């Protein structure tokens, strides 16, 4: 076991051989509110490997959506990136002009949103919307239409030609989410961000959509960030996983490592409590007392200290850095540095 202390993902030192597509370093995001700033994301360091699926898990309110939105420049108006860089090619997405954002969105980065019922414009047909997003292509309308039909067929929408003239309200939720996936893939992005794309759907549909995503990801070879409440889904779909707690990534690594041998006490608790869904905040860890910390006043020391069964004196004093586990696994916990990571 390596006891090397890796301060914030210096990725060259990591044991994996994946090419990074996107590198997030020390990203911090504040939301300004009437009662002072909420430090919703703090020092997030993550790597999105090319052609792999990264799962983002954590209970409600831990900042998964905030992270996802900051990667496509769609954070709410009261949000501000206070620190860090997000590298994608030669760009730093944390400091990007509005014009450059428009160039990247729908070209290198695309997103699928949580609620398919409200994600499509209600007064434009599916076809119009699918042709709208091809505004960059210098091709005829007929060709754009053909692409739209083609991608609707890819996501297995029956009779795609006819569906082009449908309005969103004429389709079911599952069909609408398929349309959203088709639209995102149509732009051939390098990075596809999916923020809980199946939460609004029932279980059967969820399985179908997950399989579809996996299949199409392999076909197009893009990277995917998959936000989910559902540990089972993440285990099935993702290659890598990052576990978030109260605005921090507390553990990350390959799905194999983390599900086989969770290093962080929070991850361990998650997997023990409920390998299925971790939808609601505070409900999820019944065996561990304490609630989520107030993100207006982030406590010194470990963010998980109030609920950690293994808390010790140093945790109250010092914020743990990222420590390397077996291979690609890293966790923000003093225990790992001390070599007490449970086998």
């Amino acid at each position: 076991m390596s006891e090397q202390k890796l301060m914030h993902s210096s990725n060259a030192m990591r044991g994996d051989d994946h090419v990074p597509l996107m590198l997030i370093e020390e990203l911090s995001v504040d939301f300004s509110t009437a009662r002072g700033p909420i430090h919703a994301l703090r020092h997030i360091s993550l790597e999105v490997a090319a052609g792999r699926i990264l799962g983002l898990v954590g209970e409600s309110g831990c900042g998964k959506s905030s992270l996802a939105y900051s990667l496509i420049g769609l954070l709410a108006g009261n949000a501000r990136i206070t620190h860090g860089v997000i590298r994608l090619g030669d760009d730093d997405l944390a400091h990007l002009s509005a014009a450059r954002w428009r160039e990247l969105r729908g070209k290198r980065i695309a997103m699928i949103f949580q609620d398919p019922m409200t994600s499509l414009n209600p007064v434009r047909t599916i076809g119009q919307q699918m042709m709208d997003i091809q505004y960059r292509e210098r091709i005829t309308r007929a060709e754009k239409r053909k692409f739209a039909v083609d991608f609707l067929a890819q996501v297995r929408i029956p009779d795609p030609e006819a569906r082009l003239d449908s309005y969103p309200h004429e389709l079911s939720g599952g069909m609408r989410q398929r349309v959203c996936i088709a639209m995102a893939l149509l732009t051939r992005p390098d990075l596809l961000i999916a923020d809980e794309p199946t939460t609004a759907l029932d279980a059967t549909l969820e399985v179908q959509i997950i399989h579809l995503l996996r299949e199409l990801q392999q076909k197009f070879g893009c990277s995917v960030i998959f936000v989910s409440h559902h540990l089972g889904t993440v285990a099935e779909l993702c290659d890598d996983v990052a576990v978030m707690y109260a605005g921090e990534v507390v553990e990350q690594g390959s799905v194999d490592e983390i599900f086989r041998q969770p290093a962080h006490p929070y991850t361990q608790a998650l997997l023990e409590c409920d390998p299925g869904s971790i939808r609601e905040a505070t409900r999820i860890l019944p065996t561990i007392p304490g609630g989520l910390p107030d993100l207006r006043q982030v406590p010194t020391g470990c963010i998980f200290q109030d609920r950690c069964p293994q808390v010790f004196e140093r945790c109250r004093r010092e914020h743990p850095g990222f420590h390397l586990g077996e291979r690609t696994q890293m966790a923000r916990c003093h225990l790992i540095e001390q070599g007490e990571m449970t086998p």
Partner: protein
Amino acid sequence: MIYYATQRFLLSVLIVIVAISLLTLMLHVVPGDPATMILGPRATPELIEQTRVAMGLDQPLPVQIVKFFGRILHGDLGTDVFTGRAVSDIVFEQLPYTLVLIAVSILWSSVLGIVLGCYSALRAGTWLDTLSGILSVGTISIPAFVMALYAVLIFAVSLGWLPAIGAGEGFFDSAMHLILPAFAIGISWVGYIARMVRASMLEVMGAPHVRMARSFGLTEARIVRAYILRIAVQPAVTLLGTGVAHLFSAAVFVEVIFARPGIGALIVSSVNERNYPIILGAVLVTTAIIVLATLLSDLTVALLDPRQREAL
């Protein structure tokens, strides 16, 4: 869309029928016999009886209503007892003045209101937005007749820029005569519509589908035009449709103040003369126009938004 339009049209016809029935009923519920009222206190009983028969008031109520509908279908709204002219002639003679006045008022106020509302929403929080907010709320709270009085005092009496009396003759003169009354009627609608469009724009701008459009890098201008406006103007269109009734009542005051011919002026003078056939005819035509206006606004909304075509 055609199915919806047909349904909606039939509903409108039904509304007009119900409204007319209520109107005729009301005339009978009002204390006093119309014939006596028309002829005045000095009429002889024979004369009253004669008039009652002439007006069909001696027949049972249901028969009266059915006969009334029969006559309306033939475009016959009855005869004015004073002049002996057909009520329909009198009403349709005055109607164009009011229709033009209301149409011009709606047109300028809704165009300006929508532009102002969009602008405020897109620049929400700037001083221009604040200014437009203050002006809107200010003008909303001023009734049309007060506006009309001030408009006359300032622009016609003090400055003498614009005519204040009558409807004018010929196109240019008529247009000049329209400016002040249309201003007085429309000004509070500018504020109403601007506020409403601003609110719905802001709401739609925060909708998930707009965020999705942004996630594809569509330009803001395109998003506003193709994705937001068509949804955001709907409440304003509905408001205008139902607002035509208010516009008619505003027109009553404004026509009297500006001494313009029109339905409003006609109703006021007929009420003063207790001229029931004309009141009835004028109110009937007005009702039909108001119902037509809501029909038009509903159809416009249905054209803008496919979800509205689904059901009545």
